[in-house]
């Protein structure tokens, strides 16, 4: 066991959780910092993982139990990094914890949400549903505690305070500054989806029935806004034909020049959601290359045998006809001609952008903003903050990054 200073892991998505757990289980003190009210990040919003089509909550169940049981991890949710200053033996880290409107004594009984008069768009479901201003962030949220969207509360409203049997709601809570001496930093701040609005030629942000792959995950999830039914946002009806547009913003010098690595597999997985839930619905994928490395190749054969159609070609435009049908123009490279496809629903397989840009410290990065490891500075990156990669790779890579951080924290 080491007696070194804690390592600080920024971001509690799958990479950050893994980095924190693996280090702590190897004897290292760890502080895991998360901006949201619950851990889990992007994976908590996924319906299934490829290639096993298994639920993310299954692995997260194990991981949150590990987090809870391990005395060497301190988890700080609703906390931001304010400043980080390099010292001779690591980093001087300043964190800001949002006011604890709901204290840890919350029992998740739900009485507060029952009386809350305010409803807000649910960020967990990309605004596709409305939720009370005080709520559990999602069904499997951990820490298992309600959280308040204080900015949405009407002035002088105390209904939740009065309703709470545990007296856990405190409207006078103050924010807290936390200063830490860290032996090393691990940046696991994950990614943001490439914004749909930047793809208006593909109907992104313009046409209601053009949705992103991350939104489709919520539509497929039983705890999503539609209770797991994949419906067209415009009229709430099940689509009869769905077209996936691959490389929507990726492998494109005007958008993201790199390949986002996971979109092919995410779409293959989603075609299977559709084939299973709506067997009558035709499903087509328009692609440049179908990238399913390693054992994920099986996803391609699964989709093919499920009757998914593939067209090699990059989609140039998506428009909407008067009757609501979407029309896609693309060059069918196999047929060697321009062609058109029609669809009720178009899924843009948008890529991933690293989300570490807002950190108040100098992080060495590549030209696309992916963080680079800097051993001399005891600064490490894990997961999509470092490169676009899938869940298995994030866990793999986070474990390694945690080891490097731990080794750095041991050296004096």
């Amino acid at each position, binding site marked *: *066991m080491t007696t070194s200073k804690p390592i600080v892991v920024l971001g509690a998505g799958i990479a950050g959780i893994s980095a924190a757990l*693996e*280090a702590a*289980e*190897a*004897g290292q003190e760890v502080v895991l910092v998360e901006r949201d009210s619950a851990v889990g990040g992007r994976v908590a919003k996924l319906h299934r993982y490829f290639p*096993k089509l*298994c*639920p993310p*909550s*299954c*692995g997260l*169940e*194990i991981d949150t*139990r590990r987090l*809870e*049981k*391990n005395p060497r991890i301190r988890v700080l949710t609703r906390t931001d990094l304010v400043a980080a200053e390099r010292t001779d033996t690591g980093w001087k880290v300043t964190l800001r914890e949002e006011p604890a409107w709901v204290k840890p*004594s919350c*029992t*998740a009984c*739900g009485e507060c949400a029952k009386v809350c008069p305010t409803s807000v768009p649910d960020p967990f479901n990309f605004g596709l549903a409305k939720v009370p201003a005080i709520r559990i962030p999602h*069904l*499997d949220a951990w820490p298992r505690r309600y959280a308040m969207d204080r900015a949405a509360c009407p002035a002088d409203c105390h209904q939740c305070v009065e309703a709470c*049997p*545990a007296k856990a709601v405190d409207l006078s809570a103050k924010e807290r500054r936390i200063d830490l001496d860290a032996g090393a930093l691990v940046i696991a701040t994950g990614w943001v989806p490439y914004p749909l609005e930047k793809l208006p030629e593909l109907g992104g942000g313009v046409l209601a029935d053009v949705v992103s792959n991350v939104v489709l995950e919520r539509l497929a999830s*039983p*705890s999503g806004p539609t*209770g*797991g039914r994949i419906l067209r946002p415009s009229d709430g009806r099940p689509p009869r034909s769905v077209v996936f547009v691959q490389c929507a913003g990726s492998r494109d010098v005007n958008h993201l020049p*790199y*390949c*986002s*690595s996971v979109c092919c597999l995410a779409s293959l997985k989603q075609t299977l959601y559709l084939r299973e839930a709506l067997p009558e619905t035709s499903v087509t994928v328009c692609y440049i*290359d*179908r*990238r*399913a*490395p*390693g*054992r994920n*190749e*099986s996803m391609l054969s699964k989709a093919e045998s499920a009757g998914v159609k593939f067209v*090699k070609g990059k989609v140039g435009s998506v428009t909407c006809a008067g009757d609501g049908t979407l029309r896609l123009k693309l060059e069918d*490279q*196999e047929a060697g001609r321009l062609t058109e496809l029609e669809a009720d629903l178009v899924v843009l397989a948008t890529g991933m952008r690293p989300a570490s840009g807002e950190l108040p410290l100098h992080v060495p990065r*590549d*030209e*696309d903003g992916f963080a680079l490891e800097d051993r001399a500075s005891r600064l490490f990156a894990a997961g999509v903050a470092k*490169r676009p990669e899938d*869940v*298995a790779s994030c*866990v*793999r*890579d986070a*474990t*390694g990054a945690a*080891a*490097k951080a731990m080794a750095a924290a*041991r050296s004096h």
Partner: protein
Amino acid sequence: MGRVGVFVCTGCGIGASLRTDGFESLAKESGAARLALHPALCAPEGQELLRQAAASGAVDALVIAGCSARHKRLELSFDPEKMPVERVVLREQVTWSHPAGEEDTQMLAEDLLRMGVARAATMKPAERAQETIEPTVLVVGGGLAGLNAALAASGLGHPVVLVEKATRLGGYLTVLKQVVPDVPPYDRLHANPIPELVREIEKDTNIRVLLATRVKEIAGQPGQFAVELEGNGDPITLKVGAIVQATGARPYDASRLSHLGYGQKGVLTTAELDRRLADGSLTVSGSGAIKRVAFIQCAGSRDAQHLPYCSTDCCAASLRQVLQLREAIPGVECSVVFRDLRTPGQLERFYQAVQDRSGVLLVRGEVESVAAGGDGLRVGVSDSLLGEAVEIEADLVVLATGMVPVSADGEAIRQLRDAKKRIEKNESETQRKAAEALAASLAAHEGTEILNLSYRQGPDLPVLAYGFPDSHYICFPYETRRTGVYTAGCVRAPMGWGQAAEDGWGAAMKAVQAIVAARQGEAVHPRSGDVGFASFFLQRCTQCKRCTEECPVGAIDEDPKGTPQYNKLRCRRCGICLGACPERIISYPDYSVDGIASMIKAIEVPEEDEEKPRILALLCENDALPALDDAAMKRTRWNPWVRVIPVRCLGSVNIIWISEALSRGIDGVVLVGCKRGADYQCHFIQGSELANKRMENLQETLTRLSLESERVRVVELGRDEWDRIPAVLDDFAKTLDDLGLNPLKGF
């Protein structure tokens, strides 16, 4: 029987939904030493009440009745070495899921309390192991992943022994001058990292390198492995705490690719071209200079006849070779024939840079033939982009052959060894023939041993699909099915060099964890931190070997008579052995056949004329139970006759529990566990599978009791299927209703 203190929380609506006045006498009748009600056990005063009770010396175990055991774990947990705790779930399983004030709701709550008291009375404090633990990490394989693993373990403060079968370190990458980019700039090749890594290893006094050395035997358990190595000199024996297997991959056997021209003059594999580029021997006999080179991608990969998976690195490797050839042979023209060009992430920038070079042609299509023709070779391509067949002329054809993991199938080797023993025994003609046939079918595994573990379940890591020695490869990629042994690099999954380097660090971290856990007497993943070991009452053992065969991590060996030899530091606490044992001689301090059986006995089974069936639901606590919690969070209702008992894994269900339940007049038993099969979700890999098998064997018992087979049901359920689990329970209740009450009621 331990003295049990029962603490019932009446918060979160529990008190309002139940009549608690009878709990005092219920507790007394159940044999509890004391009972207390409290409005919020998780609040500071409640916690203090519990702490005082635990410290009073008047109780040996606590029953905390309130919310699910998945809630308020910190507030309501006690040192398992001192005070066992049983959580009774009144909030989720009663108050939130059943109508307040009704008789059935009350009966449910009272049953759950009785069950909790009964189990708590059987629970004992856990003991940690006090063992001498060796901190050394053994790394098998000195390629890129192994080198990184050695540096990582050393960097984490552990001595390292690095064993390499070749006479030098570096593995496959050694021959390369350059590698594809992993950091910027992405548009060019970078220096090979191996020489620098080898220098670092040589400088590190914490790392002992043994070249031209193999593992002869590994015995023991995490923290206490006894390793015997053989090399050129005397055998070396040493003790290590954990092991990283970084044995890499070998190129796919190109002799099976004659349809792609292998065997013809001028046709090489990726590996062969790498060697020739390294030693400067790249010439084509006869025709003189090399002017045109054609690369054929997916040579043996993504092919049901060969490797069904994608070997991941071949696209990047061919692009690298294109650049290396263009440098070695000015003006050479390179074509790459591919199905899908796979350069994920920033390799895309490298791909674009190669594509932009003059003299490089990328052709999407399927290779139909490779034949001699003209003054070189002709590659026939059905070109899916131009819609017609094209021919590419080349002086040199490079087959981008994929990766095959250098793993050994421990289970197959064990079967082969067993078959050979049976042949020697020569018990009967039919047995000998069967054994000979089995041995013949497994002949390919002869001599493939790598780790030579002296484990009952076989000498190497068990492999799953495609020969990869993994288990939960998405969420827990380093996990194998042997505690304290982890895999790194291309033996684990096909990958590029950058990932393999990180893998070395990751697997070393897991190895260090295994050592730390062994030192603390704690379990590793997935029940990390669990304390308490299984105990075996061997006087009653019948040497049936079920536990030794069914343990998912090979923790139990056998002595020559077949008596189980438990290696406690390999144990993951899943309880599958406990479910396997027909003599019921295996128990954990806090999880035992007796403990669950006593819960079942505590269920009050109403007389037949009351027409209140009782249903036992054994739920996997990793997936089905949390799903039921979620259903309760959503305030979904389910049948009030169901009594839930969580189990560590469906594989830990002992058949006696089911026959006990049925013979007591309980109307049916439903087991809800994780998905099995190729895409299994069981955290202990085979638990769900084993439960199914055992339930098939149960049919005999049911017939003996004259009961319908429908009274026992196994259901697979995902962690996320909270919307389905109430229906699963209700549907089973409906089936039982159709069958009528259990005729054994009242006997």
